[in-house]
């Protein structure tokens, strides 16, 4: 991915937005990663009949163009479904700024190149406020320097080194880890018979 993510930010202040809300289960009955854009936040975006819920921020101008979300605490809690990340990205989200993210959601985001800058509650609340103005707020997430740029301001964010490198390098973790095949074999050589799980067929 590029080292910066730039775009319009939409405020989503609710705390504890869980992956059932981010990707409702009816979209999970699939064996591919594709076709999940409509599922992203579906029950907030659409009513039961499939009509757009106009009071929801992503259905209003200018936020229908948003590629960044400013979110409440503990975003992405609940189930491990990576479909939540795939769907948000297929919908067009490239970065989510919040104070805390659930662990599995955070790792899933990293695997897919979705940037999750972590900021303190003060910065988050200021961004929520600015992003809520009708003219909209453009934010640049600079992964290299771990800084946010918006209006004439700058704010630092936290992102662990490994996540930062993974995003910047756009690396395939599976292939990369296989470079350590010898170390894995060596570790396995140290396992006794009783430590080698063999599941009955």
């Amino acid at each position, binding site marked *: 991915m590029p080292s910066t993510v730039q775009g319009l930010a939409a405020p989503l202040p609710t705390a504890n937005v869980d992956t059932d809300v981010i990707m409702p289960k009816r979209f999970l*009955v699939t064996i591919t990663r594709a076709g999940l854009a409509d599922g992203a936040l579906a029950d907030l975006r659409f009513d039961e009949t499939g009509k757009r819920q106009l009071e929801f921020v992503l259905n209003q101008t200018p936020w229908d163009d948003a590629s960044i979300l400013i979110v409440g605490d503990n975003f992405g809690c609940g189930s491990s479904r990576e479909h939540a990340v795939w769907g948000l990205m297929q919908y067009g989200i490239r970065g989510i700024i919040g104070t805390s993210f659930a662990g599995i959601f955070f790792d899933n985001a990293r695997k897919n190149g979705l940037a999750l800058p972590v900021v303190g509650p003060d910065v988050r609340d200021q961004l929520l406020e600015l992003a809520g103005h009708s003219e909209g707020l453009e934010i640049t997430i600079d992964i290299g320097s771990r800084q946010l740029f918006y209006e004439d301001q700058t704010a630092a964010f936290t992102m*662990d080194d490994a996540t930062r490198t993974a995003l910047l390098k756009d690396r395939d973790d599976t292939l990369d*880890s296989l470079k*350590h095949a010898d170390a894995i074999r060596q570790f396995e050589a140290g396992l006794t018979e009783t430590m*080698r799980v063999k*599941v009955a067929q």
Partner: protein
Amino acid sequence: MSRTLYDKLVDAHKVCDLPDGDMLVYVDFHIMNEYTSPQAFSGLEQKGLKVWRPEAHLSVVDHVKATRQRAPHNAASKLLIDNLEANCRKHGIAFYGLGDPRQGIEHVVVPEQGLVAPGMLIACGDSHTTTYGAFGALGFGIGTSEVEHVLATQTLRYKRLKTMLVNVEGALAPGVTAKDIIMKVIQVVGAGGANGYAVEFAGDAIFAQSMAGRMTICNMAVELGGRAALIAADDKAYRASGQMTFDAETWASDEGAEYDSVFNIDAAGIAPLVSWGTSPDQSVAIDGMVPDVSAETTPKAKAALARALDYMGLEPGQAITDIQIDSAFIGSCTNSRIEDLRAAAEVVKGRRVAERVNAIIVPGSVFTKLQAEAEGLDIIFKEAGFDWRPESGCSMCLAMNDDIALEGERLASSTNRNFEGRQGRGARTHLMSPAMVAAAAISGHLVDVRDFKKGTA
């Protein structure tokens, strides 16, 4: 130096450090289900990779499993089940599918099949993999990309977590269960309060629990954000374990080990809890009231509370025991083990489910179901008017099969998540222990199970 149980487990599984601060950890055992694994197998395919060690994986059909009959309830779930079976056959991975006597909810099946032991590292594309902490094993949930990674390499990229100790000291009052302990912990620490932490539970109230109770506690630790949950392995844990032995260490924290965060909870002060809101930390004692919006100080908190009350269709100040229910559900990897069914049956025995209430029980596995039937529990439930399902799976815990609650339907549920829409769009979930669900089913409203035991209800 003194180490925590968590650090011992991580150290014992470290394969190597990686240049950017992560490490590779070895996965002793990996479990898959039908909905978070298909794209992992297609990833292998695309990259031309093999499964590193096929015998260390197990696949179980549970999330979309129909519970009224064996066959899939629709074409889409059949596709998921067939896809998993084909992938497992191709790669030589064990598959416990439809009609297999070992089938059931993954986290109920694994301990039953003796596939967990102290000192193991277990991964699964499911957040409730924390359950195995009950055995002093490190279990955690992973996403689909990581499922691909563990299939191809038998390892995961891993970043060491911070550690949290939750001490629950003292004795529980009669009628208070493991579910109430963990719901209390979630209430105190908060949903997300343990994000970034591995949570170790200790204290005599924890060690007094059966393995089933310990599994309930570790299972729901993910609801406070814990990426891992642990309880030191004692004799009880070793007795309940499978054949494998990982005896490199004593699987308990050393004396004097330090934690990044510590909580102390008095067991005697825990009452049976029920959730009133849409997050698992929104809970209250059964003799309490729906909270008052005006008691919140910040506008954000007021709005959040108001939204939860609106979704749940509740009034501030309403007595919890005045909440009428439409349905009762006993099931899920949190509370569908034989011990849970026995506790519910004890409440139900000789009573009738309230007129309007639709009460459903889905045993956690085929094995559990047969055991319950051998003990005659199914008869007790059926005579009381419960719908005793012949097949096992996740069912109404996440409503990915055809057991879906309706808009506005209010449920007493032994599950783990009361999120908006979890049990069906617009469905209203109240979490509680299986015995409390049973009591609510009989009464038609939320009720203190202790009144039943005293015979006053």
